[in-house]
């Protein structure tokens, strides 16, 4: 059986990839994708801990399902916002959307 730490390392790596994407990509959709990666890294963590430590219970899977649901809803909202921004300002570049600049 694959040890738990492997999963954790994998999840951490995936999280870092996502974080890097969020911080460096210019495109809003790419940033969104980074966020999804980070969420999935968290999901992997949850599932790994559940499988190794609390397998008889349902709670780990329930958490993951809820996270999926929240992520899907959040993606839908974010995508519609991005479309709306694109229609108004004709851009999907994050740095161009700076109305709140001080």
């Amino acid at each position, binding site marked *: 059986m694959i040890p738990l730490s492997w999963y954790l390392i994998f999840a951490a790596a995936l999280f870092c990839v996502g974080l890097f994407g969020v911080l460096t990509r210019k495109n809003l959709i790419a940033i969104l994708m980074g966020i999804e990666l980070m969420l999935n890294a968290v999901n992997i963590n949850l599932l790994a801990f559940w499988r190794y430590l609390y397998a008889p219970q349902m709670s780990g899977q329930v958490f993951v399902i809820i996270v999926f649901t929240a992520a899907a809803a959040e993606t839908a909202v974010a995508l519609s916002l991005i479309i709306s921004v694109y229609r108004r300002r004709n851009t999907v570049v994050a740095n161009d959307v700076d109305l709140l600049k*001080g």
Partner: protein
Amino acid sequence: MIIQALTWLIPLPPLLAFALIALLTSHYRDVSHWLALIGAGLSWLASMVVFFWAVFTPGLSQISPAFQVPWLPLGGDWLMIGVQVDQLTAVSLFFVAWTVLMIFIYSVGYHNYGQPEGDRDKPGLPPFGTLFRFKRGERKMVASVEPMYSRFFAFISLFAFGMYTLVVSDNLLTLYIGWEIMGLCSYLLIGFWYARESARNAAVKAFMTTRFGDMFMLLGLVVLYSVTGSLNYKDVFSPTVIKLLTASASPLLGLSWAGLIGLLLFMGTVGKSAQFPLHVWLPDAMEGPTPVSAMIHAATMVSAGVYLVIRFFPLISAGWLPGAPINLTMTVMAAIGAFTALFAATIALTQNDIKRVLAYSTISQLGYMIAALGVGAYVAATFHLVMHAFFKALLFLGSGSVIHGIEHGVMHTNEHVDAQDMFNMGGLRHKMPLTFWTFLIGGFALSGFPLITAGFWSKDSILAGAFSSGYWWVFIVLALAALLTAFYTMRLITLIFLGQPRTKAAEHAHESRPVMTVPLAILAFFAVAGGWVGIPANFPLLGGLLPDWFKQFVGGMLVGGEAAEGHSLVPLLTSLVVALGGLLLGWWVYHKQMAGDPDPMQRALGGFYTVLKRKYYIDEFYNWAFIKPAYWLADTLVYKLIDLKILDGILHAIGRFGPWFGRILRGWFDLPVINGAGDMIATGTRRLGADLKPVQSGRIQQYMLIALMVLVVVFFIFYYFFVLA
């Protein structure tokens, strides 16, 4: 039981009438006067029932029905108020009810009810009369209705309430309340025609003067309560209390408590019954409408003062026994009463205003009663009080009728004469026969015309009382006053009714309407028949034909009983001589008076005439001694010095200190500290915002990077402190 209920109900109908008229019906003349008349009528009816019940109940003093309710809590005690019926209440109810009702009826006519409204009439002035177009097309001046008709009836209804309250109450407190209500009504009604300055001044004068007496009366009331703990007549006049009051000395002037209270209460009477030296308000009170003069200033309110003294006679005469020397309070009363009787009679000799003559005669007659009480002639004083109410009300109403007649003549002829000056009258007996005959009866009663008039019997019994008391000076002074009374009464009658008319207005005078003359006739009946109930049993020839009911009835009230009058012919002969002599003299002097002639008194009295005409300069003296100093005190001292200089100065200084102190605070505290702090917060915030502005780049990834870095730093800090430590 029914009698008690009825007794306390007596004062209420006029009060109700007052409230309804004042609140609801002031625009409807007929409703207003019907309300007032019905109110007075109900009270009259109840009074008559109570009166006749009292008369036909043997042993009334033992029963003496009373009805009390607790009214005002005082510490651990209650002030009780209530009503009672005794002999004095009964006879007072009799004359009050009759005179009040007659005067109410008369007022309807006096205020020209049914006449057109005057186009020039204003509220606060007597009606001028108006040009009226008759059906035939001719235009004539006719009398116009009083503009404040309802107001008048409201006030006299309130007045009637006050008088009834005073009469039926069984304690000094409600008596005092009724007393002051009447004082207020007197003020309101003297100033009824308030647009005239003289009426306003007279109202204020009456109020202030009577108030001066009332102040002492209130003191007496308070002293009585604090010494005896009760104001109820039955408690106060019980022999033990009287004995206690007589025996214990008050801290003032070495008087006994009874003497002190008696003197204080008597001061109230001096004010209300217009005795010297507080008599000055009554003649001026004639500024009011004539029914008011009749009711308030002749028949009822001024009688209230005498009523008070009669009521408190057991206290005032404490320590005195019939036949013994009179005590201090009684001496004061006898002196003031006798002096006032003579003094006012002398002034009345020279007055030309018909109502003023009657006013002075009222003062004089009240002095009579006070003097009678002073020498202990209790029943005689009560008798004269009742009889005087009838004939003086009659005389005043008659004078109102005369004035009305003359005013009619004035309107008819357009001649401008004073309708109240009797030198402008004369010969009215043909024009106004009913007024003449009733006035004659009233005048004869006032002067004590022998045998047929009530005034003779009451005055004779006062003179007899004064004579048998042994106080010669009282008797002589009163006899002299009676002579003068007869003289000026005849002067009045002769100048008004006899001889020839001295002005055109008097030629065209005419008789008043029945609504005015019928009350005159009824009062005239009492002015004659009233005397029959008090004919002394030992009077020559007539004595014993009719029982001396009044003496038995009222005399039954006194605990000690009345002095046994040794009847002597001296007072009888005296009263015959002074009455007939005065009347004859008056007729003889004035019967040939022609228009424009000076008053014969002017020649007869010489320089003294002016003194009398100016009423002994008492008004001038009061003006100099009290009013001027009061004005000086108020204007020069209090207003100009204390108020303007000192008080205003202090206030202005405080006023100036305020802004100065404000400027200091502003310069040294507000601007630097408060404003500075505020400004500093504002600019500091703004600068901080400007400094932090670059952080808000609007680049979301930059924010996230910062957030990440902060997170990492916070993580390490936590890790260092909480995990490693």
